[in-house]
């Protein structure tokens, strides 16, 4: 039953009033896109077993804040912004919204709809767990790296 402390249970309403934090600005939108794997695919399998307080716990804000603060140099911030815009476009695309790359009203509405907590973008099984040799991991990193290079060209 709902937790209460008052004899007349009048406090269940206040307890119950714990509402999800609405997504209102670029910052919380970034949280949303990151949480559901649009910025970087989520390895959903591991989240279940990582020690508590992982990136999906309530301290998610601080973790992300730390990440954003780290990116102080202009180069990083520009890169961050680029990543945010492409993640936003991907979300708009799969949600059937106009792909504007702008955090507009329609996108805000869609992000605040009730939804399932399973990420939309999950990582494939880590390459390392499929192939033991080191070079294939390097290969996959190189793969990722070349992909990023492509993005930085776009920025450049």
């Amino acid at each position, binding site marked *: 039953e709902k937790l209460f402390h008052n004899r007349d249970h009048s406090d269940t309403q206040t307890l119950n009033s714990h509402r999800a934090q609405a997504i209102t600005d670029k910052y919380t939108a970034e949280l949303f896109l990151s949480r559901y794997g649009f910025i970087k695919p989520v390895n959903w399998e591991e989240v279940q077993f990582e020690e508590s307080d992982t990136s999906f716990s309530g301290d998610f804000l601080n973790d992300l804040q730390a990440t954003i603060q780290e990116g102080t140099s202009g180069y990083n911030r520009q890169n961050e912004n680029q990543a945010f815009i492409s993640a936003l476009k991907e979300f708009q695309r799969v949600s059937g919204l106009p792909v504007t790359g702008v955090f507009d009203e329609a996108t805000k509405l869609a992000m605040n*709809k009730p939804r399932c*907590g399973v990420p939309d973008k999950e990582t494939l099984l880590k390459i390392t767990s499929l192939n033991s040799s080191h070079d294939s991991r390097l290969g996959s990193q190189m793969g990722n790296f070349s992909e990023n290079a492509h993005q930085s060209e776009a920025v450049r």
Partner: protein
Amino acid sequence: RKKEHLASLISKSRRKRDLTPTGHMAFSKKVLNWRLIGEGYSSQLTIEDQRYIFRLAFRMWSEVSPLEFVEDTHAPLEDVDIRLGFGTGRHLGCNQKFDGTGQEFAHAWFLGDIHFDDDEHFTTPNVGSGISLLKVAVHEIGHVLGLPHIYRPGSIMQPSYLPQESTFEMDWMDRKAIQQLYGGCKGRFNTVFDWIRKEKTPYGEVVIRFNTYFMRDGWYWLYENRNNRTRYGDPVPLQTGWHGIPMDGVDAHVHVWSRKRDAVYFFRGTQFWRYDSENDQVFGQDSEGHQYPRLISEGFPGVPSPIDTAFYDRRDSHIYFFKNNLVYAFSVEANNLARGFPKNIRDVFPPVVNTDHPDGNIDAAYFSYTHNAIFLLKGIRFWQVVGSRDRWRRPFLPRNGLLPHKEVDQHWFDICNVHPTALKL
């Protein structure tokens, strides 16, 4: 450590996830058990409502896949394949906190845990407001079975919740998505037939309608030919829709329909029943004074029993009875076996391709008004009988020849079992 131990225990029974856009086959067995865990009851619905809704959600997946689900309230928790529970905020030892009312309403973990945010306003089916617990449960079970989010309007696997349409069901693509992971629904049938009935239109005209039925043991499906699927909510127990025939199944159905006669019969063992289509029940006694059930040997002299199956051929007004590798053509007019019968099945229904023939022990012989063709079903295969139109186009085809076999589940779709405990919901 406990979680890792649990994970290693469970992951032994689960296939490793090789994520592909269409999902991954999460279970290698076909019968899965589930439980609403005791520490995870919702405070908004009665426990019975919660369990009923989950039973229905699992049944909906069972109706479109070869998987069967059974509620298990006794086995040790690590032997339960799918564990469901409600919680708020930090809940049930889960790493992903819920966010309160709004936004995230549930999540599923690939090892079989499904959590529902009890801060959401979950409702029972067909209640206008709130979030339909049934719809969310079907979605999350889809994840545990290995389906990812699918961004197709109408898919139950869309990430965002769409307010409950009045009749929420699994559409064709979602059915094919789960069947791509676990295969189609295969199995033999006791009998297949089109049930003809007369209906009066609002203008008083009498029209003839038919529905197609597949029967297996004590249950049946109505097959909606125009929708390429079974009726939502089937299978149901035989006695629900066919009053008075044996509850655990029949061997054959025959509809004798000619200018002079219109009689529906069901056969089982050494007996047969005549069905009163007007009143949707078997006759105790028909207009000719016959009491039912009657012996097959009495009603159809010369026909052995039990039979494998039978059908009435309106082209020659004969009932064809099948037993082992013999066929007995029975003349309804003369009320006796036709001359020269019984004959070997290969002589009456010769193969078009010599090596491709059922060779007897037919499960069902079915004349389909939808296809205007006769089909012989055996196991998971069927053979279509060459019709006059086929012979007009290709005169070399033998009369009543059997065309090469096809797979039943590739012609009639989604005829899936459910677990016997879920049969009567």
